[in-house]
C-alpha cells in the first residue's frame, strides 16, 4: 500500500510540474478503471489491509515478537496464541504481524532503489544512445542471462548475508528490467512530435529527458513497480529461507518458514502461517499490478 500510494502521488506531482488537462483526465480515468477492476481492487484492499496491520503491529500484536517463553514452546494455535508458538515459545501471530513491516520495507526500499537506478540509466541510455547505451545494455543482458535467484545468491555470497545486503541484492537483480523497459519507452517517445517541439525550443537534454519524456513513461513503470514488488517479496523470502536474508531472530517470514520446516512433523502451524502471509502479500501486489496494467492501458480498459 505504502508504495502504491507513494507511486500514485509521484504521478500526481509530475502532473503538477507539467500541468496538462488531458493528462489529468487520463489519470482520473485510470483510477476509475482500477476502481472498477475487480481483481485489481481486491489486490489494493489486500495491500491496504496489510499496510494497516504493519503500521498498527505494536497495537494489535498480543505479545512481543522476540520474547521467549520456554514453558510455552510449540503450542498449537489457540485463543491464547492465534497461530501457535515456535521453538522458543515466541508468539507466531505477533511475529508474522511484525514480519509484515520487514516484508514491506524490504520490498519498498529494494524496488525503490531499482526504480531510481534502473529508470535513470534507461532514460540516459535510451536518449543518448551510442557507446554508453551499448555497454550498459550488454551489461544488463549479461545479468539477465542468470537466473534471478542464482544472481541474488551470488551477490549475497559476495556481500555477506544480512537484511541490508538482501535488500541490495533484490534491488540489483531488478535494475535491468526497469532499465530495459524505460529505454524501450524512451526510444518510442524520443522521436515523437512533442519531444521534437521541446527540443526546437532549445531545451537541454536533461530537461527533455526528465521533464518531457519521463512523465510519459510513468504509467508503464508504475505497473512494473507493482509487479516487481510482488517478486521482491518472494525473492527476499526465498533468500531468508536459504538463510541469506534477514537474520533471525528478526521475524522475517522467509526465515520463519525455513526454521518452521524443521518442525513439520509435529508443529505444522509453524511452517504454514508464514507461508500464508507471504502468499497473501505477493498476491496483493500481483493483483494490483494486473489491475493497474489494465487500467493504464486504454486499449485494455474496454475489456474490463
Amino acid at each position, binding site marked *: 500500500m505504502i508504495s502504491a500510494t507513494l507511486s500514485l502521488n509521484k504521478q500526481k506531482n509530475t502532473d503538477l510540474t507539467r500541468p496538462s488537462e488531458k493528462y489529468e483526465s487520463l489519470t482520473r480515468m485510470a483510477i476509475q478503471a482500477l476502481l472498477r477492476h475487480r481483481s485489481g481492487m481486491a489486490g489494493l484492499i489486500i495491500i491496504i489491509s496489510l499496510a494497516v496491520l504493519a503500521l498498527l503491529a505494536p497495537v494489535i500484536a498480543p505479545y512481543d515478537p522476540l520474547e521467549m517463553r520456554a514453558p510455552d514452546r510449540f503450542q498449537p494455535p489457540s485463543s491464547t496464541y492465534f497461530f501457535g508458538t515456535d521453538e522458543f515459545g515466541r508468539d507466531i501471530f505477533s511475529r508474522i504481524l511484525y514480519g509484515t513491516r520487514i516484508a514491506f520495507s524490504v520490498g519498498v526500499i529494494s524496488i525503490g532503489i531499482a526504480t531510481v537506478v534502473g529508470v535513470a540509466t534507461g532514460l540516459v541510455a535510451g536518449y543518448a544512445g551510442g557507446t554508453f547505451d551499448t555497454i550498459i545494455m550488454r551489461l544488463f543482458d549479461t545479468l539477465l542471462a542468470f*537466473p534471478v*535467484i542464482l544472481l541474488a545468491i551470488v551477490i549475497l555470497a559476495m556481500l555477506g548475508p544480512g537484511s541490508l545486503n538482501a535488500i541490495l541484492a533484490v534491488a540489483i537483480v531488478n535494475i535491468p528490467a526497469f532499465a530495459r523497459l524505460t529505454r524501450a519507452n524512451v526510444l518510442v517517445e524520443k522521436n515523437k512530435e512533442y519531444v521534437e517541439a521541446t527540443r526546437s525550443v532549445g531545451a537541454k537534454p536533461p530537461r527533455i529527458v526528465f521533464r518531457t519524456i519521463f512523465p510519459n513513461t510513468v504509467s508503464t513503470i508504475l505497473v512494473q513497480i507493482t509487479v516487481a514488488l510482488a517478486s521482491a517479496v518472494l525473492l527476499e523470502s526465498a533468500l531468508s*529461507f536459504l538463510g541469506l536474508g534477514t537474520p533471525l531472530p528478526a521475524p522475517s517470514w522467509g526465515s520463519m518458514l525455513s526454521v518452521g520446516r524443521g518442525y513439520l512433523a509435529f508443529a505444522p502451524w509453524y511452517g504454514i502461517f508464514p507461508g500464508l502471509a*507471504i502468499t497473501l502479500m505477493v*498476491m496483493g501486489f500481483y493483483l494490483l499490478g494486473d489491475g493497474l496494467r489494465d487500467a493504464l492501458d486504454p486499449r485494455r480498459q474496454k*475489456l474490463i
Partner: protein
Amino acid sequence: MGKYAIKRLIQIIPVLIIVSIAVFSIIHLIPGDPAEIMAGSNATDEQVAALRHQYGLDKPIWSQYLIWLENVATGNLGYSLTNGFPVNKLLLQRIPATIELAIAAAIIGTLIAFPLGIIAALKPGSFIDFFSTLFSALSFAVPSFWLAILLILLFSLQFKLLPPSGRPDFSEEPIEHLKSLIMPALTLGIAMAAKLTRYLRSSMLDVLHQDYVRTARSKGLSERSVVVRHAIRNALIPVITVFGLQIGDLLSGAIIVESIFSWPGVGRLTIQAISWRDYSILQASVMFIVFAFLLVNLLTDLTYGLINPRIRYE
C-alpha cells in the same frame, strides 16, 4: 532458417566467453576459501597452505582462468577441488535429472495452463474465468519452497503416498522413480502454470477480437473450428515467448526445489558448490545454467518463426 539457427548459435559463443570471465571473476571474488573450509577450525597455517597449493589457488587469478579455458577447449571441465571428482562426469550425472524435472514440470504446467487459460478467455466473466484469475494469482504468489513443504506435509507425512525426497534409479525402481518425480515437478509446474494461464488468457482475448476471427465466424465456421484452427494458433505465438522465459524460470526455481527434495540435479549441485566454494564445480554448473538459458531463448525464437512464418530471419 537453418543458416539463421547456425548464425545465432555462433553468436552465443562470445556471450559465453564473456559470461565465463564474469562468472570466474565473480566466484573468485566471493569471500571465503575452499581450503579454509576443508581445513576447519583446528588447522595449522601449513595445512591450509598445502590445500591451497593442491587446489591451484596460489596462482594468480588470470592464470587460473587461462588454465581453466585451456582445459575447457579440450573438453575437460576440471576436477572438484575438494575430492578431485571429474566435473565432466559429475555434470553428466546431474544434467539428466534437471532436464527430466524441467520437462515434467513443463508438461504439468502446460496441462494446467492450456485448458484453464483458453476456457477463461472463451467465457470471460464466468466462474472459470474468475477461477483462472484466482489460480494464476495464487500460484504466482505461493513461494515454491512453501508449496514444496505443504506437498510433503500432505503426501508424505499425512497420506504417506510419495517419498519426501530422493531420486531412485529408473532402471532399478521405475515406479519409485516416477513417484519421487511427482512432487518436485508439481511444485515447479504450478509456478509455471501461473504466468502461462495469465498470458494465454489475455492472448486469446486479443485474438478473439481480431478481424480474421470475426471473418471466420461470419463464414459460418463452427465455433470449435474457429477456436481451434484460428484463435489458438495465433494466440500461441506470443505465448511461446512466455513459455521460453518460463523454462528459464524453471531452471531458476529448480535451484531451490532440488535442494528441498534432495533431487540430484544441477541446481542442488550449484548451491552445494557455493557453500563449499568448490570453484571448478561452481563454474561449470553456473555456465551450464546460463548456457541452457541462452539455448532455450534461441529455441524459442526459432519456434516462434516456425509457428509464424511471417517473421523473416535476417
